[in-house]
């Protein structure tokens, strides 16, 4: 039921993805994390998350842009779930307004 080329491609995709997952984690297990390396690693989560989300939030269109600002403002003081629900609700309304 599995096509051979499909099988090969999926195995290859799985292999390189596993490599990416394991390599970073494994390399950090080998070294003492402190000083400048600690500062660099501390910046990774925010840096990756911000990079993933910034284009989707700010370049997609006016509705997404404004809903992203709404989410940021809500997240400033309110619980995460409130900010998420507020952001999603505002994008639905704004998309309707902007057609």
């Amino acid at each position: 039921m599995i096509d051979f080329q499909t099988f090969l491609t999926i195995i290859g995709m799985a292999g390189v993805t596993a490599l990416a997952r394991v390599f970073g984690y494994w390399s950090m297990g080998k070294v003492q994390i402190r000083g400048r390396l600690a500062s660099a690693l501390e910046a990774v989560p925010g840096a990756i998350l911000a990079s993933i989300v910034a284009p989707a939030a700010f370049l997609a269109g006016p509705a997404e842009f404004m809903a992203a600002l709404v989410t940021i403002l809500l997240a400033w003081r309110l619980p995460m779930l409130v900010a998420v629900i507020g952001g999603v609700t505002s994008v639905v309304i704004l998309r309707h307004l902007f057609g």
Partner: protein
Amino acid sequence: MSLSRQDSFLRGTLDMLPLSIGAAPFGLVIGAMAADAGLNHLETLMMGGLVYAGASQFSALGMWQTPVPVFTIIGVTLIVNLRLVLMGAALAPHVRHLPIYCRWSFVGILSDETWAMALRRSAERPLTTSYVFGLIFPFYVNWLFWSTLGVTFGSQVSAPEVYGFDFVFIAVFITLVMGFCKTRVNVPPLLASVGVALLAKTFLPGVWYIFMGGIAGVLVGAILHSDGVPADD
């Protein structure tokens, strides 16, 4: 394994709930794309289970044709998933105290969403095995369920944008990023990442923006260290 409510499996699953719901329509769309590409349920399940990285599955299925461009797809998959190298590195210090089967389960099915949620949790209290399992396993099964279901029903689902499902992911990530802005030291790397990511997204093809924005933030974080900003030691 701790049985206290705060650290429980259920707590982890509940923390992932909005993201699990948000992932459902994307799973359906992936399944529909797989069906369009000529993949059956078993092949779609296999891809979801072994690759388990939505963005790279989108890219691969978008390029799928007969004969399959095997090496192009594998190469693009690697590029799309390069960010996992940085993510795994950042995760390491937060899971060191956990048993080996927990750590490697986490690393083996590392995803943007579970990774981000684990680091958020770890900023408040140390991670436990049951909490990590509550994060990763239901989210994994959730993805396989919806993407496999999508092979049959995906084409009947209208675009996720209609109901704002696609924005769940964006809104959650924005709130997570805000969570990393706790001290002033964290702000410049974030701004560098946002700036570089927006530039790279505008001028470069594909998903280089994730990796380049990530590197920019990490470099700024490392550079600021020399300005006498105290790290953790």
